[in-house]
């Protein structure tokens, strides 16, 4: 339709210099490349190249629309008639193009890297270093109180309705567990009152919380083929307790949780709490802490006259059954060098296969049945 001038119904225009509303008429120039905006008192007239016209969306205008022009800064054209808005939309090819200021993406990349570096520095370097220092400063009774509240949260997380809900107990099973704990605890000079319990959960897992509480999962006892294997795992966890690893982990998680909350925004309020709890169960201590706990376990097992080879055997067995599974199966098996740890456990064995069993056959069966008649699959 070259040569015909199309005139649209009046619309309102703000030129971006004065707060005066101009009722304007619109026309498209002969060559159809410019939108001419003119009205009484609007000096000078505005010419908007159709390619540069942008629509500003998400406006509460019902059927109307608001337009601006890339090359005419602040000026705004507001249309209240749907037909007029549709006509303008039909003429302008780049309505929804985003005009980003030059070098914006470079700035985003620069500051993005800066933000990542800053977060990594605090989460991987500063907080762990501080956590190590602070962990030693916390008095034992505070660690115990902290451990208690952590246990409450964890039981909730694992599906227990009330406190103590998931803890397994039977007279004979408890006695067997106590016998095992006593034989190991006698070798340890620790300020903590060791409390060991079995949780009714099928995962092959064991972990320690601050203040001397150790938890064995039913699934772990089910997977073990001898009581000495359980004793080995227990000795390893006692090692974490004595080295205050769970407390370090808590401090680290608390420091990181604030950062995570900041990064994720406010739409998930419970993220921070959940993260702290999750870290406890998966208990990803750093490699050094695992090796220290292993060495500790080897030493007290030797002192107690028990074979550390059983711990190594258990590692191998778990690996055979589940492969090198990450994540769900706890720090016991997620450690990359499982085979090396198994070897070191065997090398550290001083019993040469000659030892007083940690539990009698009857006691071992009682421990395996401590969670009631949910009979575990035996290998």
């Amino acid at each position, binding site marked *: 339709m070259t040569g015909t001038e199309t005139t649209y119904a009046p619309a309102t225009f703000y030129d971006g210099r004065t707060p005066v509303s101009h009722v304007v008429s619109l026309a498209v120039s002969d060559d159809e490349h410019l939108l001419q905006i003119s009205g009484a008192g609007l000096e000078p007239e505005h010419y908007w190249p159709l390619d540069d016209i942008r629509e500003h969306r*998400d406006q509460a205008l019902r059927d109307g629309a608001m337009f601006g022009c890339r090359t005419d800064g602040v000026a705004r054209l507001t249309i209240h008639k749907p037909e007029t808005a549709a006509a303008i939309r039909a003429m302008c090819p780049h309505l929804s193009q985003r005009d980003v200021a030059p070098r914006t993406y470079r700035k985003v990349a620069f500051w993005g890297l800066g933000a990542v570096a800053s977060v990594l520095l*605090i989460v991987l370097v500063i907080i762990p270093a501080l956590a190590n220092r602070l962990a030693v400063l916390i008095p034992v009774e505070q660690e115990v109180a902290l451990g208690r509240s952590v246990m409450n949260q964890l039981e909730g997380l694992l599906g227990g309705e009330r406190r103590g809900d998931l803890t397994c107990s039977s007279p004979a099973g408890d006695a067997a567990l106590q016998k095992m704990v006593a034989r190991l605890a006698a070798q340890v000079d620790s300020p903590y009152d060791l409390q060991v319990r079995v949780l009714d959960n099928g995962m092959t897992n064991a972990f320690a919380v601050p203040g001397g509480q150790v938890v064995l999962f039913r699934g772990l006892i089910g997977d073990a083929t001898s009581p000495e294997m359980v004793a080995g795992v227990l000795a390893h966890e006692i090692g974490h307790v004595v080295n205050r690893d769970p407390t370090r982990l808590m401090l680290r998680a608390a420091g990181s949780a604030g950062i995570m909350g900041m990064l994720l925004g406010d*739409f998930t309020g419970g993220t921070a709490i959940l993260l702290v709890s999750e870290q406890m169960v998966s208990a990803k201590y750093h490699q050094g802490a695992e090796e220290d706990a292993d060495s500790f376990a080897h030493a007290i097992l030797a002192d107690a006259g028990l074979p550390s080879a059983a711990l190594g055997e258990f590692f191998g067995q778990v690996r055979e059954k589940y492969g090198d599974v990450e994540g769900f199966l706890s720090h016991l098996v997620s450690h990359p060098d499982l085979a090396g740890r198994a070897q070191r456990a065997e090398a550290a064995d001083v019993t040469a296969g000659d030892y007083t069993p940690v539990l009698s056959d009857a006691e071992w069966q009682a421990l395996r049945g401590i969670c009631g008649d949910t009979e575990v699959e035996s290998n």
Partner: protein
Amino acid sequence: MSDASGNSIAVDYRGSPTPLLKLGLATTFLTVVTLGIYRFWARARVRRYFWSALAPGGDGLEYTGTGLEKFLGFLIAVAFLAVYLGLVQLGLFFAGLSLLSEAETQAKALAQMAGQYITLLAVLPLIFYAQYRGRRYILSRTRWRGLRFGVDRAAFGYVWRGMAYTVLSIATLGLLLPLQMFRLEKYKVDRTWFGTGRFEQGGRWWTLYPAAKHVVIGILLIALPGVMMGLRQEPVVWAIVVMALGAVWLPVGIVYYIVHSFRVLTGHKTLNGVIRFTSLPRTGKVIGLYLLGSTAASLIASTVATLLLAIAAGVIAAAFGGMSTPDLDAMIAGELRMDYATGMLAVAGIALFYIVFIVLFSALSMVMIRQPLLAHYAAETTILNTEGLKTITQRAGDKMVEAEGFSDALDVGAGI
């Protein structure tokens, strides 16, 4: 619409439920599925809608901030704040641990308290800073009739005043809170511009006290019977009834204070020396709209989420029911995998419920709470002596690279 005389204008509210609900659902859903990254863009889009719905004299406000700008600002804030906040968080946690056990000596107890306050004080200046800068950003991205709003660069003056008045308010057990509120408001308003026109906060700080009367009554209703029973050393029925009355009176009184202090402050604001404002929102209406909206929004959101969860559970049950029996036996025998599978299903179920509820509730609360409240405030507001607008012209733009990143990072941003 414009007054015929052209010398005073009412504020229209022209938002409507359906487009806002669509916008709310879309932006919240995108925020959840992008693990929160989209929230900057969501904020910008929702603001654009609310701004344009507020139309003094029929001309909508325009919000020109963008999501990308906010995202960049957030990255800058994180780069600066991550280390600082990590340390503060660790410090607070450590101080919190110390509270778990009783301190053996008086000195130790004092040291514990000091530790906590020092960590809190370490964040307070940042919060005031972020609030001032956030407000400056928002207003610099707000236009009306084509002219920009603007705020002077004066965040540091705001920080130390904010700190000083906070200490004063705490020291006087809240008696001087109106002074703090008035002086900080005046500091901000006197540095705010519309084009070349400057806003000014007039009035006297003590004129805010009448607005606080129901807060005082609420506190007295709770405190006096408490003191009396403390003296008699036994519970008294009527005293407990009076205290219960006070427990309702106090929150209502707080809303009354918010609404009426707003009336007083707005009534004493001027723009360019001549343009004045009146705003007369009503406490009863505000509480009514809020209660009605939040009840309806949470009821609808939880009903829909429960229905969806029930349908999902039904589908899964049907799928399992369709399996042949030996398969099920095998699963039960493989105890561990069964535990794992049911555990994951339960987690997925909770996550589904949570996400659906959050998305629905936040979209519905925009439509059922924020929009009616904003409409009420708009309807009760009038701008007077608008002849004075004619002498106002455009002001230069304000380039703020860090946008409101600090208030986003500290989560102290504006409500909308």
